[in-house]
């Protein structure tokens, strides 16, 4: 029945909700020339995000998550370039658009929240000026309307004294408030898509929970879609509908969130899960993944995870495993994805082991 659908359409039909496609990235390759050679930071990434969906992009530092986002936004740091691929937003290929057109889309249709809430705000301007700038650039509201909208936005992101905060400078605000201001800025023009890069990493647990609830509200009440970039697998479990796992510039697994946590199919995904303290009793050492993400220059053939994979076989070093279907909307790039029985944090087996232990 699905045979006449393209692979991407098949992914759509496997999604948890029936929705239109908002973002579709195909074969994205992002390169950064360096003295030691060309770094292929993103190497053939396919990614789809539907309207109203929250999609997670996870992986260790240096896996290419941020550069994937920067490529979509046309914000690559020089001398980085998108070397190949298509980036469709609402059916239009963004790569065919001019710099000006892309700037208009950014901020208007696609909002973004970056990793460092301090450096993303200009220290010498008030919050009002900075959010106002976004509105001035992208709308034709007059200054009174802008002032009102700024206060309204600050209230919307849960700031209790919006008038006062509007007149504040970034240094006068706490980390949590700054992150709220950034979110207010990102949603100022009611974007359809919000790209959030580690939005809670720098925040304390209780403030993190506040921001998490705020993001949930934006999805449920304002219908915003979110591409959530993070290495926090618990945050993904709480917020996302579907997840892409990246390793060394490629997608190694994608799945609806439950399937991934109940039965991960790629050894890297399972290894990431096992690094979380609390996944196993504390008298055992954590199943750390030894080594680190390989350099992305002159990548040899074969599986990129081979040097760190506990299941590596000869074949893995010569043949690159393709990303293949392993279930409804579930794909993995491992030669043994079908035969391996890998634990995830929501596996039944584990649940029994931990029945008595506190879970976090």
């Amino acid at each position, binding site marked *: 029945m699905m045979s006449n659908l393209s692979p991407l359409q098949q992914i759509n039909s496997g999604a948890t909700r029936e929705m239109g496609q908002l973002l579709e990235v195909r074969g994205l390759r992002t390169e950064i020339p360096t003295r030691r050679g060309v770094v292929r930071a993103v190497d053939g990434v396919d990614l789809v995000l539907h309207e109203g969906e929250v999609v997670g992009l996870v992986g*260790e*530092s240096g896996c290419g998550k941020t550069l994937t986002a920067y490529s979509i936004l046309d914000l690559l740091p020089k001398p980085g370039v998108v070397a190949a691929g298509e980036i469709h937003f609402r059916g239009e290929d963004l790569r065919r658009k001019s710099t000006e057109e892309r700037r208009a889309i950014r901020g208007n249709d696609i909002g973004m929240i970056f990793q460092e809430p301090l450096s993303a705000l200009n220290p010498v301007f008030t919050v009002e000026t900075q959010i106002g700038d976004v509105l001035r650039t992208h709308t034709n509201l007059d200054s009174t309307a802008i002032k009102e909208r700024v206060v309204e936005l600050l209230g919307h992101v849960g700031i*209790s004294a919006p008038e006062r905060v509007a007149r504040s400078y970034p240094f006068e605000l*706490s*980390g*949590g*408030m700054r992150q709220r201001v950034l979110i207010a800025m990102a949603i100022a023009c009611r974007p359809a898509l919000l790209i959030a890069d580690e939005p809670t990493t720098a925040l*304390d*647990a*209780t*403030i*993190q*929970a*506040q921001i*998490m*609830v705020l993001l949930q509200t934006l999805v449920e009440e304002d219908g915003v879609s979110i591409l959530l970039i993070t*290495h*926090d*697998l*618990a*945050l993904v*479990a*709480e917020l*996302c509908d579907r997840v892409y796992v990246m390793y060394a510039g490629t997608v190694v697994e994608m799945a609806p*969130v*439950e399937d991934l*946590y*109940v039965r991960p199919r790629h050894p890297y995904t399972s*290894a*990431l*899960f*096992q*690094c*979380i*303290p*609390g*996944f196993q009793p*504390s008298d055992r*050492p*954590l*199943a*750390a*993944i*030894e080594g*680190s993400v390989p350099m992305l220059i002159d990548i040899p053939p074969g599986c990129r995870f081979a040097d760190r994979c506990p299941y590596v076989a000869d074949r893995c070093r010569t043949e690159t495993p393709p990303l293949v279907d392993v279930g409804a909307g579930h794909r993995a790039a491992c030669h043994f994805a079908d035969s391996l029985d890998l634990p995830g*944090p*929501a596996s039944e087996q584990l649940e029994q082991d931990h029945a008595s*232990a*506190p*879970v*976090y």
Partner: protein
Amino acid sequence: MLQHRCIEMSQVDPLLQVTDLSKHFSLRKERLWGGEPQVLRAVDNVTFEIGRGESFGLVGESGSGKSTLARSILRLHEPTSGRIVFRGTDITHLPERDLRPLRRHMQMVFQDTKSSLNPRLRIRDIVAEPLVTHKLPHSAADVNELMDKAGLSEVFLDRFPHQLSGGQRQRVGIARALALSPDLIVADEPVSALDVSIQAQILNLLKVLQSEMGITFLLIAHDISVVTYFCQRVAVMYLGQVVELGPSREVMGNPSHPYTRALVSAVPRTDPRSRRSRIVLRGEIPSPLSPPTGCPFHTRCPVKIGPICSEVAPPAYPTASGGWAACHLLAPGTGASNSASSPLIQTGEGKV
């Protein structure tokens, strides 16, 4: 306030005893004339002990005073009041000259390896630095051995810090801390800046140091799962005070203080099937320049019982976990002690 001390005294062979320790900073007023200097209560009347070979955790949100407490214990800050006894010696006001021989036995590991490692020194010199400072004889083999203990290859010896990854730099910080074979390592957020995979490597390393070398740890982390994994006991800090203390698994599995409950509830779970309604605290930590009267948590407490919370500082009451918590709800005989948890459980747990 004597109760928590009674519970604490049961510890055998304490390496470190901290009693009623406070560290207040006086801030100069913005205006030059008039007025008292403002007092910032970064650490307020903190009491606990750490047994030899124990791993003791400190959790709490940013600004709750964890680092200030650690730095005061190491005498990197002069304590405002209270007492610190380390290896049986009262070091609270010990002059630097007499403190020096004791400093060897207490070392620190930091979160920010970029600023805590001298960028102009090679790794071999960074690791040997404490030996040089304390004028101790050492050979290249000693440095190699330290590198080995910290799980660092000798190829890094001639590199500079910026040529290492974050995880490798943290290992250098640990190798340096090991140089003087300390009894106590105070680790301030040693894994917070690291990826989960690297974090797991470093936690495993610290565990080995604890079990094989018998090193005592004071571990500061805002990540509850890290502390629960690594520490036998934990103290939860809020606005400069310890609000709950006890065995870490029990405290985090069955918290008694409303703040600890909120903190535990805020931790996202790694199971998408048990997304839960959580206790979301309103607002942020009040300023330590004007801390609330009574219970420090009363301005955000979701189960505040009444005026007593804002008027009377709650004493420490024993908890089911075998530790103590400072909350009026736990007062025996009020009938409230059993219902303390019920309003929170309703909002706190989504899973059946």
